[in-house]
Structures are given as structure tokens and as C-alpha cells.
């Protein structure tokens, strides 16, 4: 049987999250189609440390999937670019 964990998406961290995670992004192995952004975040949170702090429930985290604003319930697919970032403050 195929190990679906070999499917990957690319996670991008921006602004305060990029600094807190000391990473601008990474390849992320996941269970394949049907997985939601909320589930991806839940997995990241499980790493503890800055991940648990910055992604704690109640912290405002914004999401874009393939560079379009998305929500925790958005489903992701192999190859997707999932960006996590704080509320925007441009202008």
C-alpha cells in the first residue's frame, strides 16, 4: 500500500512567523488530498516551542493557499504552497 505521507506541500512562513520559526519555509509531508490547513497547523503546533506559541489557538494567523487568501477549512493538495503569516499591516 502507498504511504500517503510521501505527498508533500510547501509551507511558507512570513514576517513575525518567519522570524519566530527561524525559517522562511519548508517541504511538509502530509496525508494527501482531503487534509485541511487546520490539520497542517495542528501538526506544526505539535512541534512545541515557538511553533506552539505562535500557532496557539486564539493567535491570529492568516493563511494563503497558492497565493490566494484561504481559511483553516481550506483543503490542500500535493504541491500546494501554503503560507502562514500574521494579519497584514501594509499601506
Amino acid at each position: 500500500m502507498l504511504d500517503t505521507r510521501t505527498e508533500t506541500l510547501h509551507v511558507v512562513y512570513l514576517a513575525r512567523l518567519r522570524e519566530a520559526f527561524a525559517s522562511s519555509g519548508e517541504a511538509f509531508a502530509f496525508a494527501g488530498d482531503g487534509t485541511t490547513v487546520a490539520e497542517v497547523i495542528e501538526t506544526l503546533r505539535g512541534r512545541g516551542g515557538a511553533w506552539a506559541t505562535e500557532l496557539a489557538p486564539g493567535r491570529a494567523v492568516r493563511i494563503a493557499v497558492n497565493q490566494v487568501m484561504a481559511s483553516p477549512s481550506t483543503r490542500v493538495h500535493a504541491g500546494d504552497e501554503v503560507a502562514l503569516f500574521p494579519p497584514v499591516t501594509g499601506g
Partner: protein
Amino acid sequence: MTVRVQQAAFDIGDEIDGMRAGDARVGAIATFIGTVRDVNDAASVSALVLEHYPGMTESALGEIVADAKSRWNILDALVVHRVGKLEPTEAIVLVAVTSAHRQDAFAACEFIMDFLKTRAPFWKKETTPAGERWVDARQSDDDAAARWSPDTR
């Protein structure tokens, strides 16, 4: 309809002249310029660094402008947003909208700014006497964007 993200400073007069050049249908140009203040949230600010999400920024701005064009009778719209390090009094963003009449130009310009503030992937980091800090989003910006629900004109 033009959106640009750039490090370089821009000339406000040239930008406005360029977008309306020769178009005698234009009767109204509403513009907004956001500039760096030397104080924010009770701390003095000596510099600002603007970060963005390169892949997404232009498309997010383009969508906001297209949405404005679908809601109001406008002729053209221009958004120029700077990234990188900026100092107090420098211009961060220019939004300019042309129309036959002023109501459409004003409304579309304000709409674009409200959604740019809540939907376009830019983040500000300030240098203050206590060090660097990320600027917090304001509830008032969310409220401003919420005014423009689809059935509100």
C-alpha cells in the same frame, strides 16, 4: 489598471500625470498617499522595514483593483507600494483612481486602501528606541474593510 511593488521611491506628480495623460474623459482623480510617521503606538519610530510575500502581492492588489472597477464607474486605477527600508516622511503607498465624476473616484480610492490594509500581504517592522518590533494590525482597519459588504454601495 496598474499595480507595482518596488523598493525605489516614486514621484507622486509623475505617477498621477502618467495615469491620466491625454485621457479627456477624466474629470476626477482621487489619490491617497500613505507616509511613514515618526511615532506609532506611543513610541518614536526612526525607521520602518516593509516585508511582503512576493508571489502573492501583485495578484492580491490586482484583485482588489478589479473588485473596485466592478463596483464603481472608474476609468483607471494605480497602486504603487514600496518594500524595504523607509524613513519617516517617506511615501509607502500611492493609490490613484480616475473617473468622470468625483464620487466614484473617492469611493473606489477609499475601498482600495481599506482592502489593501486588510488583504494585501505586507508587514511593517518598526525601529524604536526599545528595539525592533512588528507592527500590530488594527481592529479599525478590519472595521473599515467590513463597511464595503457586497450589498453596500
